[in-house]
C-alpha cells in the first residue's frame, strides 16, 4: 500500500516538475531556432538596401534573428533590366524569405518563383495582383503597402497648399514602374479636383533626367511632383539638384527626401514601416505562412520641409504647411 502511495507521489511529483519546467520555459521568450536562416533583399537602388540594413535588420535582431549569427542576409540591387539576373542569383541561395522593395522587383521574383516567401515593401500589392486582399493576402506574399498612388494626390494637394499661386504642375514619372498607371490616375484626379494643369514627364533611366527637366522648363512648369518610386528615392539628390537648377519647387515621396534637397517630402514614416516589415520577416521565419499575415498600411505620415531650398527658390511657405512639418531642414 505504501508502495502505491509513493508511486502516486512520485508520479505527481514528476508531473509537477514537468509542469513547472514547462511554465518556466513558456514564460521565457521562445528563442528562434538556431539554424541559419537566409534572407535575401532585392532592390533597385543601393540606397534602399542601405535603409533596409539600417532600419530593418536591427528590428529583426531585436526579434532574435541576428545577421551573421543565425541569419544570413544577402543583398542584391539592379536596374530593371538587370533584375532577372539578380533574381536568379538570389534564388540559387535558396532564401527562406525574400524582401523586395518596389513592385518591379517583386514582379521579377514572381516571374521566376511563385513559391519563395516574399515580404513586399511597395505601392500596392493588391492592385498589382500580388495579394488577394490586405487582410488575407493568400499565396506566399505579405508585406507593407505604402499607399504610393493614393498619396500622390495628397502630395499634389500639399504642393498646391505650399504654392497656391502655381497652377502649372509637372510630374516626373518613372516610365518602367508598374505603379506608374495608378499614380498617374490619382494625380490626374486630384489635379482635376484642385483645378491644376498637370503635365507628365516620363523618364526611363537616370540619363533621361536632364532632358526631362529641359522639357519642363520648356513647358514653363511652375512646380514639380516627383513620382513615388524607389528609383527616384535613390536619385533624390540628383533630382533635387536638377530641380533647383530649373528653379522648380518639388514635392517628393519621403520626408527624408526633403533633406536631399526637395522642397517638400511627404509620405509614410519609413522607419516604422521597415520595422514592421522586419517583424513580418520574423514571423515568416518562425513558420507562419506568409499568406496568413495581413498586409499592413502606414499609420503615421511625416512631412519634411527644406527651408534652404525654399530660400534658394525665394519661396515663403504658408503657416498651414509649416504647421504640418515634422522634419525641417535648414
Amino acid at each position, binding site marked *: 500500500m505504501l508502495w502505491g502511495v509513493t508511486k502516486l507521489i512520485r508520479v505527481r511529483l514528476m508531473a509537477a516538475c514537468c509542469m513547472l519546467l514547462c*511554465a518556466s520555459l513558456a514564460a521565457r521568450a521562445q528563442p528562434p531556432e538556431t539554424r541559419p536562416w537566409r534572407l535575401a533583399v532585392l532592390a533597385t537602388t543601393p540606397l534602399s538596401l542601405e535603409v533596409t540594413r539600417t532600419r530593418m535588420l536591427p528590428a529583426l535582431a531585436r526579434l532574435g534573428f541576428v545577421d551573421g549569427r543565425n541569419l544570413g542576409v544577402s543583398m542584391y540591387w539592379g536596374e530593371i533590366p538587370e533584375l532577372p539576373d539578380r533574381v536568379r542569383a538570389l534564388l540559387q541561395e535558396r532564401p527562406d524569405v525574400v524582401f523586395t522593395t518596389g513592385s518591379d522587383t517583386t514582379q521579377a521574383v514572381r516571374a521566376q518563383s511563385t513559391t519563395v516567401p516574399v515580404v513586399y515593401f511597395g505601392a500596392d500589392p493588391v492592385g498589382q495582383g500580388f495579394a488577394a486582399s490586405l*487582410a488575407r493576402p493568400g499565396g506566399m506574399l505579405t508585406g507593407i503597402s505604402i499607399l504610393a498612388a493614393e498619396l500622390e494626390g495628397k502630395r499634389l494637394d500639399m504642393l498646391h497648399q505650399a504654392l497656391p499661386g502655381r497652377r502649372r504642375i509637372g510630374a516626373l514619372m518613372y516610365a518602367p514602374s508598374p505603379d506608374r498607371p495608378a499614380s498617374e490616375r490619382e494625380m490626374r484626379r486630384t489635379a482635376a479636383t484642385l483645378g491644376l494643369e498637370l503635365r507628365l514627364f516620363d523618364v526611363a533611366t537616370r540619363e533621361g533626367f536632364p532632358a526631362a527637366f529641359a522639357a519642363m522648363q520648356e513647358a514653363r512648369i511652375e512646380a514639380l511632383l516627383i513620382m513615388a518610386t524607389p528609383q527616384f528615392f535613390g536619385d533624390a539628390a540628383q533630382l533635387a539638384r536638377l530641380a533647383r537648377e530649373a528653379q522648380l519647387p518639388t514635392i517628393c515621396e519621403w520626408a527624408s527626401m526633403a533633406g536631399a534637397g526637395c522642397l517638400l517630402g511627404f509620405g509614410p514614416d519609413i522607419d516604422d514601416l521597415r520595422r514592421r516589415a522586419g517583424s513580418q520577416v520574423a514571423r515568416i521565419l518562425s513558420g507562419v505562412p506568409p499568406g*496568413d499575415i495581413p498586409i499592413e*498600411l502606414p499609420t503615421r505620415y511625416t512631412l519634411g520641409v527644406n527651408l534652404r531650398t525654399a530660400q534658394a527658390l525665394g519661396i515663403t511657405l504658408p503657416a498651414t504647411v509649416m504647421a504640418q512639418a515634422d522634419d525641417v531642414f535648414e
Partner: protein
Amino acid sequence: MHRLRGLRVLLARLLPAGLARRFGLAMVGLVSAALVSTGAVNMWVTWQEATAGAVQVQREKAQAAAERVAQFIEGIESQVGWTTRAEWSRVSPEQRRYDFIRLQRQVPAITDLQYIDATGREQLRLSRLEPDVVGSGTDFSTDPVFASAVAARVWRGPVYFRRGSEPYMTLSLAHVGRNPGVTAASVNLKLIWDVVTAIRIGRAGYAYVTDGAGRLVAHPDMSLVLRETDLSRLPQVAGAIAHGDATPTTVPGPDGRQVLSAHAVIPQLGWIVFVELPRREVLAPVWASLMQTLVLLALGTLMALLLGGWLARRMVVPIRQLQAGAQRLGEGDLRQRISLDSQDEIGALARRFNDMAGRIQEAQETLEAKVADRTRELARSLDELRLAQDRLVQTEKLASLGQLTAGIAHEIKNPLNFVNNFAELSAELVQELEEALATAGAAVPAALREEVAELAELLRGNLAKVVQHGKRADSIVRNMLAHSREGGGERRELALNPLVEEAMNLAWHGARAEKPGLNVTLERDFDPAVGEVWLFPQEFTRVLLNLVGNAVYATAQRAQHAGPGYEPVVRVSTHALEDGVEVSVRDNGTGIPEAMRKRIFEPFFTTKPAGEGTGLGLSLSHDIVVKQHGGSFTVESQEGAFTEFRILLPRVARAAMGAA
C-alpha cells in the same frame, strides 16, 4: 516488481518484524494521513485562493484595461473638443484648417477630420491620405455623424474596417452653443495597439478588445485585428455579448490555449475588453503548493519511518533483552542479569526480573550447600559403617577362629599332659636305672655298663627334649585357650603411663635375654594428661609386651641387612584424646608388606621363621583390645620404613564392657 521487492527488503531491514513494524507502519500511516489530509486541505485552500485571487485580479485588470482603452478614446474626444468651442463657427476657414492641422499633429490616431456646419453641410475635410476638401457642401444632415452628434453631443460610430483590414471608428462631437456644427474624426484604432500591449497581465497574459459584435478591435497580435477577426464564437466573448457581466472562467483563448478570462465593458463605446491569463500561470502557485505539500509529505513519511523505526527499536531492544535474559535464565544460567537503565516500565520490569533471578540464585546456592553437607555427612557415615562392618566381620572371624583354636587346644591338652608326664616319669626311670646299675657294680661287665650308661644318657637327653617341646606345646595350647577365656582377671582403674613403662621394661629385658647383643633405642613419649584408664592390667600388659616384642624383632630383622648408619628406634607414646587415650608403638624396622597387612590379626599367621612365633600374639592382642576393652586396634606401615600400631581405648569403658 523487482523494485517492489527491494523496497520490502529495505522496509524489513528498517523495521524488523513484529512490534517494530507495526509501530513503524502505524507511525507512517498516522503521519502520512495527517500530512495528506493537511496537504489536501492546503491544496484546496490554495487552489481556491489562487483562483479567487486570480479572478479578482483579472477582474480588476480587465476593469483597468477597459478604463485605459476608454481613456484613449476620451483623450481623442477631448483633443477634438478643442474644435468645438462656441466661437469656432465664426472663425475664418483658414483658422479652422490650421486648428485641424494642429489637431491631426496632436493626435496621430486621427486620420480624417471633418467640419460639418449647423445645417449639416460639410465645410472642411482634412485627411492624411487625401487632398483636403474645403467647402464641399456635401449634405450630412441626416447622417448619424451629424444627426446623432447634434442629438447627443457626442457620437461614437461603429467600428469599421477600411480596405477590409484597418479598424476605424468615427467620432463626432457637436459644437457648443445653439445650432451647433459638428467635428467628426476618423480614428485609426490600430493605435489602441499601443494601449493594449502596454497592459501587463501576469507574465504571459494579454488583453484584447472587441466591439459589441465580437469583432476584434485591438489585440497585441496586430495581424489578428488586421484580418478582421470575429471572436464571437469564443465562449467568453459570446457570454460577454449575451449577458454583459460574468465571473471570469477558464476557457480556450483566441490562440486555443486554456486561459482564465475576465472582461469589462466600456459602456460609452459598447466595447468589451478581455483580459486573459494562461491557466498554467494562474495555477503556478497551486502547483508550487502541491509540490511543497508533496515534498513535505515525502519528508514527513521518511521522518515518520525513521522515527517509527527508531522508537520501535528503542522499545523492542529492551524487550528483546528482557526476553533473551528470561530465556537464558530458563535455560539455567542463574547469573544472568539484564542491564537496562531506563526508568520506564520496561526498566522496572527488568529490575524486578533481576531481583527474581537473584533470589532464585540465592535459593539454589543454599540448597546446593545443604545437599553438599548432607552428602558429606552421609559419606562419612557410610565410611564409618563400612569400617564398623569390616571390624565386625574381622572380629567375628577372629572369634570363631579363637573358639576353634580353644577347642583344638582343649582336645590336645590331655594327650599332651600324658606325653609330658610320662616323659618326666621316664626321665626319673632312667635315673633309677642308672642308680640300679651302679649298685649292681661289678656284676655287670664294665663294657656293658659303659654301654648302658651311654644309652641312658641318650635317653635322658631325648626325654629332656620331649619335656622341653612338650612344655612349649603346652604353652601354645595355653595361649590358644586364652582365646576362649573371657573377662579373666579383674578390671580396674589405674594410671596408664606407669603400666606402659613397666611393660616396656619387661619386653626390653625379655628381648635382651633372648638376644644378648640386641641394639635398639627405646623412646618414650608419654602424655601426662592420659591419667587413669579403666582396663584389665594383665591382659593389656600382654598386648604391650607383644607389640614391643614384635617392634624390637622387626628392627633386629632390618639391622641384619641394613648398613652401619641404621639406628633401630622403637617409640612408644601415649596421647590423651577427648574421649579416650591412644597408645602407639612405632618402630623403624622392616615394615609390613601391603599384602600381609590384612592378615596379621588372624590366628597362626606369622612372618617369623618356624619355631620362633606362634602366630597367636597379634590375634590375641586384637581380641584383648577390641573385645575386652572395646577399643580399636589399627596398623599403619610402610615397607622398609616403619610400622606403627595404634590402640585407642575409650575412657569411659563401663558401657563398652557392659556391651561386650
